[in-house]
């Protein structure tokens, strides 16, 4: 085997190792899902307060990720936060009276949207609005309420 061939083999091994490392990072370490997004349909909901919800936050149903938050903006008419989310097409049988709440994973973890399916026979379609919502629980508000109540009862 000549030196040139040896170099070529080593470079081949090197590139292969790089590709393996990339695959490990993509599939084992992070949530890589292919270059194109999974096909999905969009629904939106209006919240009074989204707390610390961010774009690309997960949308979960019974703890399973069924979609992602697409965009967060302020609705110009109601001044509420309009959260648009993509729900994967696999989950197209969500009843129209499904409710959405902004929840926190753990005490101080990231925030996500939790869905609770209702009982209606009609299903959510592309562009629909989720009517039943529960805003984020803001820890400071909670403590504030608790303190006021505590003070009132103390009188």
């Amino acid at each position: 085997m000549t030196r040139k061939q040896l170099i070529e083999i080593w470079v081949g091994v090197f590139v292969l190792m790089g590709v393996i490392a990339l695959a490990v990072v993509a599939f084992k370490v992070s949530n890589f899902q292919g270059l194109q997004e999974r096909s999905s349909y969009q629904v939106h909901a209006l919240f009074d307060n989204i707390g610390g919800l961010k774009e690309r936050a997960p949308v979960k149903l019974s703890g399973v990720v069924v979609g992602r938050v697409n965009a967060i903006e302020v609705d110009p008419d109601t001044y509420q936060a309009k959260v648009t989310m993509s729900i994967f097409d696999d989950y197209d049988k969500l009843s129209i009276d499904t409710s959405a709440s902004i929840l926190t994973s753990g005490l101080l973890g990231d925030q996500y949207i939790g869905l609770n399916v209702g009982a209606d026979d009609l299903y959510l379609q592309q562009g629909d609005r989720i009517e039943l919502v529960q805003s984020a629980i803001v820890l400071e508000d909670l403590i504030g309420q608790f303190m006021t109540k505590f003070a009132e009862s103390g009188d």
Partner: protein
Amino acid sequence: MKQRILNFLEQIGQSAMVLLAQWGRGAIFVANLLPALPYSFYRLELLIKQVYFTGVLSLPIILTAGLFVGMVLSLQGYNVLVDFNSEEAVGTMTALSLLRELGPVVAALLFAGRAGSAMTAEIGLMKSTEQLSALEMMAVDPRKFVFAPRFSATLIVMPLLSLMFIAMGILGGYMVAVGWLGVDEGAFWSQMHASVDWREDAVNGIIKSVAFGVLIAVIALFQGEDAVPTSEGVSGATTRTVVQASLGILALDFVLTAVMF
């Protein structure tokens, strides 16, 4: 007294002008090099040789360093997280630190010391032994034959090395956390998988490492070409490559982090 102040100011001015002149030469060098870059893909054998010299020969140091950095991260993270009863998050912490910062930065620093300095020394030596002149006299453009393959090789090698560093680091973290400290294996991987985002964390880390590759290649090649063709000149240029590349990586990392995250 007045004379001293004037002298001092003059010295500052002189150093600034020397520095500015060097930057100017560097900019001209890069501008001249750019049109030659596509050539490195016509001459694959030159590129492969440089990938071997810069990449394959850097493997031992990168893999070993990655393993240890991951082990240390995991150990340190565990000691902090165990107080909050969330030691399962050690995998997430290790993976995020490696992907966002330590992987690209440490791999680039090691690369600058291992391959960047060698590149400067080699080109400085080629200059001082008139090999670059000889190439020109043989009507072979040194930009195409010497500089372009090294530049492209660095660009290819740097993200790959960075990825290998990260993978090794996570393996090291896994060994310490799961194998030694008794963190639950399933929780280790699932937490990591759930909180590390491909685009936000991994892709940004890879972009960083490519940017560091460009920086190292420009500095190492320019310092080699700009070296005074004597032994002191070449050794000085080699030192400058390591110093400038290391500082440059850290500064660029700050800028990129500010823009990305």
